[in-house]
């Protein structure tokens, strides 16, 4: 990231690159004397006063070019054809902003993608434009149908509608034709260096770089026909990238069928080759990507210009990272395999499906992204900042209910018999009430009764009555029933109308004629902020698992108001936190996930 920032600073200092610059080894330029600015915002303060996403995206803060004025962007390479191509481009788009969200369909989206989705869809929306959902399915080996649908689901869950759903593979024929053209123009060649020879520091330049175009055309044809084994030949583009990487690969041989094109191809294009050309085909105006791709910006411009096709502008923004978690597909697979989490959507993970399951509202995630901002800086955030956004939304959206996690039976001996109305949102009684039964037998939290009390303890104890929320009654202990071991099994209490009694020191929640349910309480999955950092966690991320990350209570009780709740319905259980109905729920038994506690650090008496 630091190098990227330096690059960026250098870029600003030296002005737009010309093709001549790009040919040079960039090493010289990288030794900038500039002091790097700490561009990483850690624990970026999330203030509620942040502008809404739309406002930010509409604002002047983003110095993005207007559609058709690509050439006004610093670093944009202008060729003799540029103006004509831009004119054509405007004729196609009518001057509309066009963005795209281009995930690889090989994994589940995570919180980092939420930023990309928000940025791309949001920017288009804020400027009256459109956004494509384009699956970058150039790599045939990993793609599975489930990823395609899951990605689309998540985009829609976040509240966005793609203008069109496309696939990089839709353009394989066009890409192939362009590859031939690129060879003919002398910009690409077939190379036989091994992967090991290309990788690493200062790899030797390809001895095949200057072979005649005719020869490359024939060999590329042979590649397409399956005459070369995997790794025996690649098509490489003749250019040097910002980071000094020479001649990136455009096509490689893979004897793998493709999810969509079947057995039509045995050569597949790379990201470097495909991405900008797909953008060009779709007439994207702003190609937004994270900062790792900054080093590929020159190749992006170079390739479009080498083929004389419309060249979009690539803009970079900082990645969004979250502490105390891992998001890479490989690592999540390890977690699932080792049983550390139940599946990809285990609520302790930060995949979007996991967050939805845990009960995070899409709105909260979008708000979080807005607050992180769309700056170039990479943001590494604490999960509690996300949770704050969640509370903010749920406070407004999740109706109240009462649940008891560790029930203690209480019998009211002088029971008055009545139903109780509980406000859905106590702060705003206009939003309705729900009725819960109030019978002689109620259940309270075991921890809300103590026989011996100390000074700070304000709840039920012999001689210390307590108020029952929403009932208008205060109960006082009459008799404590214990088992042979001396454990409190039940309480007998008397009740008094609260206006007839002294004001109790505290009010507790309770349930009566409740439903049995399962409650899952979550803590952080990892103990350290950066479980992937070997300096912090030498034993690897699997050694950093929090043993208490999941607590399952299968004997909890909840009031009847939640009876017919559907999966993902959200409630605030008084004094316990926000909860969401898990899809594991059955008609027989509801399962609740605790989304977040009521406060960041729940008070402990």
């Amino acid at each position, binding site marked *: 990231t630091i190098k990227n920032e330096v690059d960026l600073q250098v870029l600003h200092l030296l002005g737009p690159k010309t093709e001549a610059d790009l040919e040079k080894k960039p090493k010289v330029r990288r030794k900038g004397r500039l002091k790097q600015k700490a561009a990483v915002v850690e624990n970026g303060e999330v203030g509620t006063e942040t502008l809404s996403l739309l406002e930010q995206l509409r604002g002047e803060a983003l110095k993005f070019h207007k559609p058709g004025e690509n050439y006004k962007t610093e670093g944009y390479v202008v060729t003799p054809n540029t103006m004509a191509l831009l004119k054509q481009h405007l004729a196609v788009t009518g001057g509309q902003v066009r963005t795209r969200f281009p995930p690889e369909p090989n994994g589940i989206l995570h919180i980092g993608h939420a930023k990309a989705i928000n940025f791309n869809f949001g920017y288009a929306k804020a400027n009256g434009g459109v956004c494509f959902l384009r699956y970058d399915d150039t790599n045939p080996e990993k793609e599975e149908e489930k990823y395609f649908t899951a990605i689309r689901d998540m985009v829609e869950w976040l509240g966005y509608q793609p203008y069109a759903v496309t696939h990089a593979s839709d353009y394989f024929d066009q890409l192939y034709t362009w590859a031939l053209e690129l060879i003919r123009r002398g910009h690409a060649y077939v190379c036989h260096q091994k992967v090991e020879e290309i990788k690493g520091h200062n790899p030797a330049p390809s001895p095949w770089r200057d072979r005649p175009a005719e020869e490359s055309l024939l060999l590329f044809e042979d590649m397409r026909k399956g005459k070369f*084994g995997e790794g025996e030949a690649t098509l490489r583009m003749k250019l040097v990238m910002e980071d000094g990487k020479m001649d990136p690969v455009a096509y490689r041989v893979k004897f*793998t069928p493709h999810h969509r094109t079947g057995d039509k191809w045995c050569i597949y294009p790379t990201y470097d080759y495909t991405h900008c050309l797909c953008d060009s085909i779709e007439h994207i105006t702003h190609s937004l990507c994270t900062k790792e791709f900054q080093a590929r910006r020159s190749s992006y411009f170079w390739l479009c210009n080498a083929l004389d096709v419309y060249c979009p502008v690539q803009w970079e923004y900082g990645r969004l990272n979250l502490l105390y978690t891992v998001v890479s597909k490989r690592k999540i697979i390890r977690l699932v395999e080792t049983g550390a989490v139940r599946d990809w959507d285990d609520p302790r993970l930060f995949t979007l499906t996991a967050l939805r399951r845990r009960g995070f509202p899409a709105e909260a995630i979008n708000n979080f992204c807005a607050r992180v901002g769309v700056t170039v800086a990479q943001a590494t955030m604490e999960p509690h900042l996300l949770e704050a956004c969640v509370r903010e939304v749920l406070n407004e959206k999740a109706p109240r209910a009462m649940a008891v996690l560790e029930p203690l039976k209480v019998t009211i001996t002088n029971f008055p018999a009545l139903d109780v109305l509980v406000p859905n949102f106590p702060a705003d009684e206009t939003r309705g009430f729900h009725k819960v039964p109030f019978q002689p037998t109620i259940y309270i939290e075991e921890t809300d009764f103590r026989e011996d009390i100390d000074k700070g303890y304000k709840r039920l104890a012999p001689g210390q009555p307590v108020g029952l929320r929403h009932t208008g009654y205060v109960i006082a202990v009459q008799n404590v029933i214990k088992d042979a071991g001396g454990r409190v099994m039940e309480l007998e209490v008397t009740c008094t109308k609260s206006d007839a009694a002294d004001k109790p020191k505290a009010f507790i929640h309770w349930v009566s004629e409740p439903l049995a349910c399962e409650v899952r309480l979550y803590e952080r999955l990892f103990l350290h902020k950066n479980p992937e950092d070997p300096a912090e966690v030498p034993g690897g991320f699997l050694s950093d698992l929090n043993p208490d990350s999941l607590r399952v209570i299968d004997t909890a009780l909840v009031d009847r108001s939640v009876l017919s709740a559907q999966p993902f319905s959200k409630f605030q259980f008084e004094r316990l936190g926000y909860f969401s109905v898990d899809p594991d729920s059955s008609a027989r038994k509801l399962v609740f996930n605790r989304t977040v506690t009521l406060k960041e650090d729940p008070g402990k008496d």
Partner: protein
Amino acid sequence: MEARVAQAVARLARQENEIKCLTAEIERLKNFGCLGVSPSLEGLRDENAKLKYRLNFLRKSLQEERSKAVKSSMININSCLQELFGAAIQAAYPDLENPPLVVTTSQQPKFGDYQCNSAMGIAQILLKRMEQKISPREIAEKIVQNIPSNECIEKVEIAGPGFINVHLRKDFVSRQLSSLLVNGVQPPAVGRRRKVIVDFSSPNIAKEMHVGHLRSTIIGESMCRLFEFVGHDVLRLNHLGDWGTQFGMLIAHLQDKFPDYLTVSPPIGDLQAFYKESKRRFDTEEDFKKRAYQCVVMLQSKNPDFLKAWNLICDVSRKEFQKIYKCLDITLVERGESFYQDMMKDIVQEFEEKGFVQVDDGRKIVFVPGCSVPLTIMKSDGGYTYDTSDLAALRHRLFEEKADILIYVVDSGQSVHLQTVFAAGRMIGWYDPKVTRVAHAAFGVVLGEDKKKFRTRSGDTVRLMDLLDEGLNRAMEKLKDKERDKVLSEEELRAAQTAVAFGCIKYADLSHNRLNDYVFSFDKMLDDRGNTAAYLLYAFTRIRSIARLATVDEQQLQKAAREEVVVLEHEKEWKLGKCILRFPEVLQKILDDLLLHTLCDYLYELATTFTEFYDNCYCVEKDRQSGVVVKVNMWRLLLCEATAVVMAKGFDILGIKPVERM
């Protein structure tokens, strides 16, 4: 009490857990989880999948290349000249319909390289049709004046009564030779890729293959190779005699001899003896005969037990046949008569619906115009005949396999039968002979050296396997006579032995006009003088050794082929060069008349022409004393190479495997 309950509960929990584990384990094993232990398995599976993908891909690409590979075909000089003279005659005599067009190679150098003899024929026609008397010489002159400009003719002369002698351009021939060396031996252009079906070999189950089948097998294989070489899609069908009443007695006998045949594979080693035994019982035991007929009915109704018995018997034969096919390097797809059984009902129906069927004494017969004998498509007992199954096969090959060319390599004895079947197919409208070629490539019988039917001394038919074994022994004797065993390594000797033995048997058959009967003689076929495989194989190894002795390697030859001109100044160079380039002409002729001996004759001529060249032109000049190579005449080595590659391709089509040393 409580403690015991707690214990029991704990135990129960443990057991339930164990059950879960075991269930999971079973699931895992079901999914070959047991194999998952090997870490390389996954890798190998991946690799396998990739290899399959690549194979499929290469096949597709091959097809793609074939479909547009016509450009690199070898030029058929004869047909080039025919085109030129055709155009010339057309221009000279535009009113003449179907003028005779005759172009042949000249027999003597003084008559040029090729000659066109059309003038005489045209004179005749002009006289008869138009009552014009014009001398052929005059006509020849007019033709010559109208020859279009071209790249191959150096000059033409009119000789005698009106022969037009053609001299080819040396640089044209030289260029064709260079292209042959650079591009390899390419087929002549034959137009679009066609589906070709060759029905050959076709022995009968439970009977020994005999020399008649040998002819069909050898000729059929060679035809397939030729059709494949020119780029057609060839299906090689073995029309096995695997169905019929004889299976009734075989199955009945099997049931008697091996009652537990369904569970224990019966050890039938000698199927022929088994056949004879059952035949004897069939002829002598009335009960057995009755049961044999019942077995036929059971088999035809596809009773599984009887099908199994049938399969067991067929398998024994199949294994025997396969041994012979392996020796002779024959590839075939088995599709016997049984394959067509279910189609025969429809055949009868189709002929009935179209009104071709007559009932004669309970039989259903079909008269075919121009054929003396009617086809019997259903017997009076409701059974079918060879006529029916051959019609069904014809129909299937035309409609299901979509054959463009369909060739039956069957002995001449079947000629009337097959011609009637073909004519019936045309009559009912299955194919148009102008579009689809259906041909009987007939062949004569094999005779012994006494010019009588080929039999063993005791009068039995000769077992094919014995014949091949004898061939091997005789070939070895011959090699030892020539003391080759002292020169060659054990491995080389054995390779030479099989190459000579099987090569000679095939070549002897192929080098005779298939329409004639042919005399089988090991002495003649192993003779290394004259038109035999032995001679050609020796000649070939000698040519191959020339470059080797001059220490010129393949790369140097390739380079020379690209860069050096093949000089054709010497008379013998010129003769050899032209002879080499006649290869596509020869193949084209065979594609038309299916007479493979033309290829043998050509190869023999090529070998003798080469010998003439080699005797007269030094390829490599050596110092007489020291034997050190002084000079290499590269263009001559190129001529050697061109001869060798054409011979090798010729051998390949004939199914003969040359060896590097013998």
